[in-house]
């Protein structure tokens, strides 16, 4: 009976999405409570599904009692459970921020819940065409949410994303069409078997199908040559929406890439088609390098972290292309870790702009004195993004790097070492832009009127930043000053929403704590890896 959890987990947010609009006819501001209840329930379901997977391994549900391969199957295994838990918790956490930061209004929360439902479905489905439908549900709601603050610039960014995102989803659909022509089935596991039985890995139709699917998902993930929609969309979207998008939307598309590559086409297909994996690795490498370099050149905070996402997803795509166990483990760990880190970073950036009106790196001079906890948490998350151990960012990069070198050592050619080098270079770039941020946070106030150089240049930069600036009592003397109606808290000097601050600090701590959980994560993903590389 536990398999009923799967359809119910998808149904909860989608059904709840109708409520804010319907009840909005009678009540105002009913959207947030409904969204909070629905996502809390979803967190419960995600936890239950995770526990079920931990106890009994992979389980599935045949929708409407039509047995697969004819019917649509929902599947939970280690990978999807991990991503599902990320989706549920982040979507609940973003709500805490959107309550203070907006956008407000019942229709926004309908869209929000629809997006969460789409993400849940995308993670749980075991059917290729169903995946397309959820991909488009996620897409459409994301376009609507980006434009939720009703400005012209966000509408333009959203339309750009709409055109490119739809092309991506359509290319994915062509790929699904081709593989359907080759095998006559859409169920993921059945396709896996039928490709071997009916077509073989060298069949041009199957190869073209995989190429189209990868190209389509690359557009959705925002890999290098086709990433152009992403920085605009992230920058122009309302802060709460950016945090949700950056943490989940591209992440689930990358999850779909891993799923399709390893569950549908299998590692044997990748091994049999060197040209395809090499092309994927080249794209991944270009994505890593250009994303990092472009991020280092930005001065808008949201844009900077947006480009950084291009680089990090390049690493995940690289892990997919390397097709060995260690690299794929790294890819999956980085998928979860990057989602968590980007949620924290965009939440922090949103909080700074809410409390201090600072959106550009120049505006941030000695924020650490004004908002020590916020700045400290952002600094920790930034260093985790660089990959300083112990942190989840380090683990993901490390496994991908080791996997890359391994693949070269086991006769994979120069591509593996190339990826490892590219990751190293990208780490330096990441350090460059994160260090710039930290320098602004902690040192830039020196010499400015009212600034205390001694306080601000305290060497305790990386310990969370509490020591460096907490004694700075003159709250409005620094170059960064809070906006008029910035929230005030009696506990901390930070003029940011307290609930969001608690979440931000919690996210930073989780990112560090997960850095100690390398073996636990490896153990968690082990059943999936052995299944894939059997």
């Amino acid at each position, binding site marked *: 009976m536990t398999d009923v959890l799967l359809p119910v987990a998808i149904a909860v947010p989608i059904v709840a999405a109708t409520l804010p*609009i319907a009840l*909005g006819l009678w009540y*105002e*501001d009913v959207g947030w409570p409904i969204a909070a209840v629905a996502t809390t329930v979803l967190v419960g379901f995600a936890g239950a599904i995770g526990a079920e997977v931990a106890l009994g391994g992979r389980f599935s549900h045949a929708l409407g009692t039509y047995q697969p391969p004819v019917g649509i199957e929902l599947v939970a295994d280690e990978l999807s459970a991990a991503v599902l838990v990320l989706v549920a918790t982040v979507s609940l956490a973003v709500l805490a921020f959107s309550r203070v930061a*907006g*956008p*407000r*209004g*019942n*229709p*926004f929360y*309908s*869209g929000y819940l*629809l997006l969460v439902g789409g993400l849940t479905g995308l993670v749980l489905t075991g059917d290729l*065409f169903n995946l*397309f*439908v959820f991909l*488009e549900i996620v*897409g*459409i*709601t994301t*376009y*609507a949410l980006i*434009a*939720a*603050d*009703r*400005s*012209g*610039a*966000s*509408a*333009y960014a*959203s*339309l750009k994303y*709409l*055109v490119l995102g*739809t*092309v991506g989803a*359509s290319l994915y*659909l*062509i790929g699904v*069409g081709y593989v*359907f*022509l080759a095998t006559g089935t*859409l169920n993921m596991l059945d396709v896996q078997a039928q490709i071997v039985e009916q077509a073989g890995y060298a069949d041009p139709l199957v190869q073209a199908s995989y190429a189209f699917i990868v190209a389509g998902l690359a557009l959705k993930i925002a890999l290098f040559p086709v990433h152009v929609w992403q920085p605009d969309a992230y920058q122009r979207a*309302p802060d709460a929406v950016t945090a949700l998008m950056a943490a989940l939307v591209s992440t689930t598309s990358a999850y779909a890439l891993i799923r399709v590559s390893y569950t549908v086409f299998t590692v044997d297909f990748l091994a049999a088609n060197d040209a395809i994996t090499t092309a994927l690795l080249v794209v991944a490498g270009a994505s890593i390098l250009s994303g990092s370099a472009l991020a280092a050149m930005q001065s*808008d905070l949201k844009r900077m972290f947006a480009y950084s996402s291009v680089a990090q997803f390049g690493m995940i795509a690289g892990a997919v292309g390397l097709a060995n166990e260690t690299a794929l483990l790294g890819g999956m760990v980085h998928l979860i870790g990057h989602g968590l880190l980007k949620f924290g970073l965009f939440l922090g950036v949103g909080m700074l*702009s809410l409390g201090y*009106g600072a*959106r*550009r790196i120049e505006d941030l001079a000695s924020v650490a004195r004004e908002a020590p906890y916020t700045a400290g948490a952002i600094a920790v998350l930034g260093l985790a993004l660089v990959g300083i151990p112990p942190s989840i960012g380090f683990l993901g990069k490390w496994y991908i790097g080791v996997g890359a070198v391994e693949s070269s050592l086991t006769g994979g050619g120069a591509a593996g070492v190339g990826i490892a080098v590219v990751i190293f270079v990208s780490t330096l770039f990441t350090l460059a832009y994160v260090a710039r941020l930290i320098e602004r946070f902690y040192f830039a106030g020196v010499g400015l009127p009212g600034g205390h150089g001694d306080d601000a240049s305290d060497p305790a930069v990386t310990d969370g930043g509490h020591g460096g600036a907490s004694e700075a009592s003159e709250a409005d003397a620094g170059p960064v000053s809070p906006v008029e109606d910035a929230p005030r808290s009696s506990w901390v000097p930070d003029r940011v929403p307290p609930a969001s601050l608690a979440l931000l600090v919690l996210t930073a701590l989780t990112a560090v704590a997960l850095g100690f959980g390398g073996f636990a994560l490896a153990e968690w993903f082990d059943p999936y890896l052995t299944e894939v590389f059997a």
Partner: protein
Amino acid sequence: MTGVGAVLASGTAATSALKVVTTRHAYVAFALLLCVGLYMMIANPHLVKKIIGLNLFQTAIFLLFITSAYVDGGAIPIVPSGAAETETFVSPLPQVIVLTAIVVGVSLTAVGLALCIRIYDEYGTLRTDTLRELLRDEGSIPERAQFGDETTATDDGAATDGGVAATGGETDD
């Protein structure tokens, strides 16, 4: 006409090309429509025409699915209870897929056009080149201004939003 046919039939490559056109014309149409749609999206500076290009692109994919499902002489796949399944049937699955994809396409077009209306209200143009100039003139100023607008506009936002897909369009100021 016969001249053209003779010329085409003379080379083997040309013959096979002709064969493809005559026997697999639906697939050729699929490829052509796909390219026309894609080209329109890339080359046309007008936003609404980009959306039309997008629709062409999607229609091409519908054509691919429908063509693949076509069976010469196939019957409608409805079997009355008790009847023997002796006939050849057309596969219903691709048609269902296309139905779903049409629904997705329509809602995408709706969202796209709503965004176009919003952009037109804001900037008075739908040409990307003009738009880009206007956005550049705006510079990075909209950051702060947007934020202020948003907080002041929240109250009427709650009351006037038509729905997620239709936000924007008619209620924009």
